[in-house]
């Protein structure tokens, strides 16, 4: 008997009982027609070899375990950053179910989004009626202030014309004539989720700004980009701006909608960039983007209005934050306050306290291109070596930029950037050129299992650890969080490696 009501066991331990183990063995032996154990072992070892790595890197068509998602996910991310805005994805409905699940699993929050639910008939005749009915239903049911339309690959392949469709829906009364329906074509077969973020944000900004006269003022605009830490980061950035007395507009502020309270009320919408602020943002002096590769087209568009644009690469750490703050200070003419200088000093102090444990450690990193850049810079600042830096949605330009970063420091010697590669490539890298730690999202746990490289979870999505998205990784305090997460893992590993009594536990130190 496996269960005892005083201590009910679930999948973690239930299946380790002898009756289940025997059942598994019999199933395998009698019915699965398995490969012989030695053959499996042989192939497993072979997958760790240089020979396998070369074959693996010679792949031209197959992608295995990529670290990227598709465009409309990014479009939905950008859309929910605006006041009472419903993202509306034109195309097949299953996609929307996936985006909503994906965000809910990461943020542990509701994620509202609708689909135009196109099926076979729409594939033949086009999705105009879906747009007309869909906008009317969304407008009436969910009472948004704005609906942002993007597309799934189905609508893109059949060539639906969003602009025309939305105009026709308007003329049929689906939404009022003056109701805001920005849109962006977001084909899943071009770029990745960061491209979709860029396209949607450009769509929203141009919807508000096109044909408008710019009257420059002293405010600045801030764009965070597609960011798993958006909740913590945007709050931190607002705090920094407030400390500096900088008047600002966050474009796509999703820090509230993905962190609503449990107080008896479900808020489908919460916070977000006010639509009036988004309109007025054309008058800002400059726009700062924290993620260059996530906002290329948006910044191009903004630059054409006459604003200065500044593109950073997901700055993490002392120098990265210094650069960010100095850019803000330069643009606004506001000095960096003593309080922030003190925060900086505290971060430097923390690094000095702990760097002995990080110095010289080798890391592998994967993620979105800007995040990789920011993390690699911070590691080098800590005296660590970002040996393998891989970005499935990174470009050749990104690779060159990473190389320049490596070349700028002795800690970058021998480090290499891998654009367009996936986590099965990373597996080969870790097997053939091992490192001490891996930084990546939740899927990195499979690499941890297969290669024994301890995983520090930083990225998107993180499904299997809770609440990290509430912490910033930007600003000096954000860097402090990243430092602590890395140190926690480093110390845990030290303890794990020294825990055998009478064998290794002389180093099981109480003070580290």
């Amino acid at each position, binding site marked *: 008997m496996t269960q005892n009501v005083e201590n009910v066991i679930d999948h973690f331990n239930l299946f380790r009982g002898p009756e289940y183990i025997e059942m598994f063995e019999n199933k395998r032996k009698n019915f699965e027609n398995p490969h012989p154990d030695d053959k499996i072992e042989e192939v497993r070892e072979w997958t760790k070899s240089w020979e396998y790595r070369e074959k693996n890197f010679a792949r031209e068509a197959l992608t295995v375990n990529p670290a990227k998602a598709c465009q409309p996910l990014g479009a939905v991310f950008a859309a929910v950053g605006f006041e009472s805005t419903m993202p509306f994805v034109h195309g097949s*409905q299953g996609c929307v*179910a996936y985006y909503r699940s994906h965000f809910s699993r990461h943020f542990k929050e509701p994620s509202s989004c609708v689909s135009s639910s196109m099926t076979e008939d729409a594939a033949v005749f086009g999705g105009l009626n879906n747009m007309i009915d869909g906008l009317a239903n969304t407008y009436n049911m969910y009472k948004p202030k704005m609906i942002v339309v993007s597309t799934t690959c189905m609508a893109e392949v059949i060539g639906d014309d969003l602009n025309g469709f939305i105009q026709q829906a308007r003329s049929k009364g689906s939404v009022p004539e003056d109701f805001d329906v920005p849109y962006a074509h977001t084909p899943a077969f071009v770029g990745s989720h960061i491209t979709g973020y860029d396209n949607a944000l450009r769509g929203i900004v141009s919807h508000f700004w096109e044909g408008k006269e710019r009257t420059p003022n002293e405010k600045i605009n801030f764009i965070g980009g597609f960011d798993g830490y958006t909740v913590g980061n945007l709050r931190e950035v607002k705090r920094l701006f407030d400390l500096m007395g900088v008047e600002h507009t966050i474009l796509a502020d999703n820090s509230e909608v993905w962190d609503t309270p449990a107080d008896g009320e479900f808020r489908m919408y919460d916070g977000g960039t006010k639509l009036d602020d988004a309109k007025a943002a054309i008058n800002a002096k400059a726009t700062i983007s924290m993620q260059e590769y996530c906002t290329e087209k948006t910044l191009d568009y903004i630059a054409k209005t006459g604003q200065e644009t500044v593109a950073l690469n997901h700055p993490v750490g002392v120098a990265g934050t210094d650069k960010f703050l100095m850019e803000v200070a330069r643009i606004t003419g506001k000095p960096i306050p003593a309080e922030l200088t003190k925060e900086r000093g505290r971060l430097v102090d923390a690094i000095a306290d702990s760097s002995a444990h990080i110095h010289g450690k080798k890391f592998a990193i994967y993620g979105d291109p800007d995040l990789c850049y920011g993390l690699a810079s911070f590691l080098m600042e800590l005296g660590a070596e970002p040996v393998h830096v891989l970005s499935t949605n990174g470009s050749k330009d990104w690779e060159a930029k990473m190389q320049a970063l490596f070349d700028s420091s002795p800690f970058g010697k021998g480090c290499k950037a891998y654009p367009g590669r996936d986590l099965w490539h990373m597996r080969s890298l870790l097997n053939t050129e091992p490192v001490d730690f891996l930084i990546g999202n939740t899927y990195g746990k499979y690499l941890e299992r297969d290669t024994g490289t301890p995983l520090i979870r930083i990225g998107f999505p993180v499904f299997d650890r809770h609440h990290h998205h509430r912490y910033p990784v930007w600003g000096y305090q954000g860097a402090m969080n990243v430092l602590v997460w890395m140190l926690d893992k480093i110390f845990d590993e030290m303890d794990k490696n020294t825990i055998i009594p009478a064998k290794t536990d002389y180093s099981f130190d109480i003070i580290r």
Partner: protein
Amino acid sequence: MSLTVEQVKARNQDLIKEVLEVYPDKTAKRRAKHLGTFEEGKSDCGVKSNIKSIPGVMTIRGCAYAGSKGVVWGPIKDMIHISHGPVGCGQYSWAARRNYYIGTTGVDTFVTMQFTSDFQEKDIVFGGDKKLEKIMDEIQDLFPLNKGITVQSECPIGLIGDDIEAVSKKKSKEYDGKTIVPVRCEGFRGVSQSLGHHIANDTIRDWVFDKMDGKPAAFEATPYDVAIIGDYNIGGDAWASRILLEEMGLRVIAQWSGDGSIAELENTPKAKLNVLHCYRSMNYISRHMEEKYGIPWVEYNFFGPSKIEASLREIASHFDDKIKEGAERVIAKYKPMMQAVIDKYKPRLEGKTVMLFVGGLRPRHVIGAYEDLGMEVVGTGYEFGHNDDYQRTTHYVKDGTLIYDDVTGYEFEKFVEKVQPDLVGSGIKEKYVFQKMGVPFRQMHSWDYSGPYHGYDGFAIFARDMDMAINNPVWGLTKAPWK
């Protein structure tokens, strides 16, 4: 609940009317057909089902790809399932369904991996067949122990006119008759996941069964061979079921498809009986095996001791006395443990009400398990059910139960707000909505990362989890004391 059945029915009617008021007329007319109240004695639940979702309403449904790759094919562990098309579909469904399995991932087992053709613009413009061929070659090269390949079509495939059948045939021939299965489960087909299940079932018929004629049996058949059909082994469900069938003296020769293998699919036409848990997703192949191979099938329900007991007897009735005695022995063996679970948890859960909205079999199948704990299901509905599901539901629900087919986000929120159940059981997209409202919630697709819930071992976990959801002290903290 203190309302009489008639009062409940009147309340439901008002509630439905109120909910429909928000819609434009055309939509209200269409949605009205999907909302209703079960009337005792009727042969179905009085709602329309398996109809296209309405644009813009926030349906909870997925697509045919989700039904094929995510449900039917994905768990077959020793084959490689290519998400064929752009990167997203495979990414969002990657390892998300907790189909447990045993095997060396990346070597002889591939369930929790994301194989994608990652379509680029040129693949859309020039077609993806050449790329697909190359992908299959690369799979053979890098994953030599794979036992087969399936091609899970995403939306563009059917729109750009690719011939994945030709590619699959060609490559199968090239690789000595290797099982390669093209699946036309493009997301725009049909109205929900459901068509994906059907399409996937049909491909097993056409590309596995019909291609194995003449292959020698992998094992000696016995009179007690059964196959578990329609259990995806979420959190180990199929294992907690299999152990009971084996304990009663049956031999489980295949699991469809949780922890399943291609060999097991091929074994199945030799079964004496197919036992079917998720009717919705695998009735098609069960009917086919009945017609072609003469294998009878029987539906069963392994949620909660009452239904398990009835199901064990029903399954045993297809066999001789040895198995019938075996069923009684199993029932007797677990009875004290089940009683202990009920004794512990029923006093904590008695009279609590539940609203469900799930897929597959669960909107009806779990009702008995709640009732074993003294709880009452007051509302239920199917994400992608058909009328035969709603007919079967009549055997489970009470007079006056609120029924909602393909519920919209808005409707579900309003229904829960007004009915005020003690627990909602639905999916990840719904979980946080209701928890914000202060309503206890359990995910009834993924078991909220717990499980198994099937079988006797599973019921103990089910009871524990429902108790921890409802009697969680956090629900007493949602209101600030100064408010």
